[in-house]
C-alpha cells in the first residue's frame, strides 16, 4: 500500500480551504485576475478582517499567493500552476512506474541470458 501522510495533510488543508462558499468565490475571482484584499472585502457582507482571514486559509492551502504591490498586497491564484505541476509530476510517476515494470521483467530473466 502506498500511504503518504504528507500528501494527506496537504489534502486536508486543501479541502478545508475549499469547504466555504466565500473562499471558493475568492479563488474564482483570483483566477480571473489579481485583486487587493480591500477590493475583495467590498464584495462580501463581512469585515475586512474576516476576508483577510479567508485569504490566509487559502494561502495556507497553497491555493493563492499574495504579491506586495505598493502599499497593498494583491491576491493571485496558484491553481493553474499547481495543476500544471501536478499533471507533469503524474506523467513522471507513470513513466518511472513503467520503467520499474521493465526492471522487473529484465531481473526475472535467468543470469547469463541477457
Amino acid at each position: 500500500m502506498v500511504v503518504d501522510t504528507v500528501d494527506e495533510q496537504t489534502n486536508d488543508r486543501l479541502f478545508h480551504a475549499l469547504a466555504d462558499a466565500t473562499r471558493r468565490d475568492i479563488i474564482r475571482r483570483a483566477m480571473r485576475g489579481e485583486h487587493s484584499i480591500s477590493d475583495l472585502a467590498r464584495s462580501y457582507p463581512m469585515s475586512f478582517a474576516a476576508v483577510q482571514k479567508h485569504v490566509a486559509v487559502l494561502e495556507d492551502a497553497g491555493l493563492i499567493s499574495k504579491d506586495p504591490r505598493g502599499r497593498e498586497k494583491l491576491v493571485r491564484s496558484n491553481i493553474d500552476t499547481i495543476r500544471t505541476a501536478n499533471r507533469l509530476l503524474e506523467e513522471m510517476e507513470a513513466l518511472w512506474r513503467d520503467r520499474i515494470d521493465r526492471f522487473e521483467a529484465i531481473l526475472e530473466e535467468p543470469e547469463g541470458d541477457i
Partner: protein
Amino acid sequence: MPVTNVHKDPENLTMTVTAELEAPVTRVWQLWEDPRQLERWWGPPTYPATMVDHDFTPGGKVHYYMTGPEGDTPRGWWRIISIDAPHRLEFEDGFADENWDPVDDMPTMTVRIDLSEQGDDSTKVTIETVFQSTEAMEQILAMGAEEGMIAAMNQIDEILGAGATAS
C-alpha cells in the same frame, strides 16, 4: 507491486518513487551500468532507446537516440554529475541536437538514483527527478508524453465549477 511509495512535490517540482526489487544491489546497478540493459528499459516499447556513448564517470556523457513508430529518432544526452557504484548515481538528462550538443532553450531534468540492500537478495531503489521549472515541465510534456490528471485537481475543478476553467 514493486513500487512502495510515490511522493510528488509540486512546489519543488520533484517526484520521488521508491521500489523494492528482488535482486542484489550489484545486479540492479547493471541495469544502469550496462548500456545493453539500459536500452531495454529507458524508452517505452514504442520508443526504444539505443545508447551510442556510455561514459559512466563523473562529468561523463551518455548519448542515446530513441526510435519512434514513424522512424523518428529524437536524441538525448546525460551528463553524469556524480557516481558511487553500485549505490548512487546522479545525472542531468536533456535533449540533444545532431552533434549531441544540448538543444538551447530545452529543459533538463536532474535524476538521482539510490540503491540500498534490503536483506540478501532484495534492493530498495529510490529515484528522484527534479524539473527546472513548470515551463520546463510543459516543454517536456509537449515532446511526446501522454495526458494525465491528478484526481485532487479534478475534484477542485468540480468544486469550483465553471469558474475554475483555465483562461
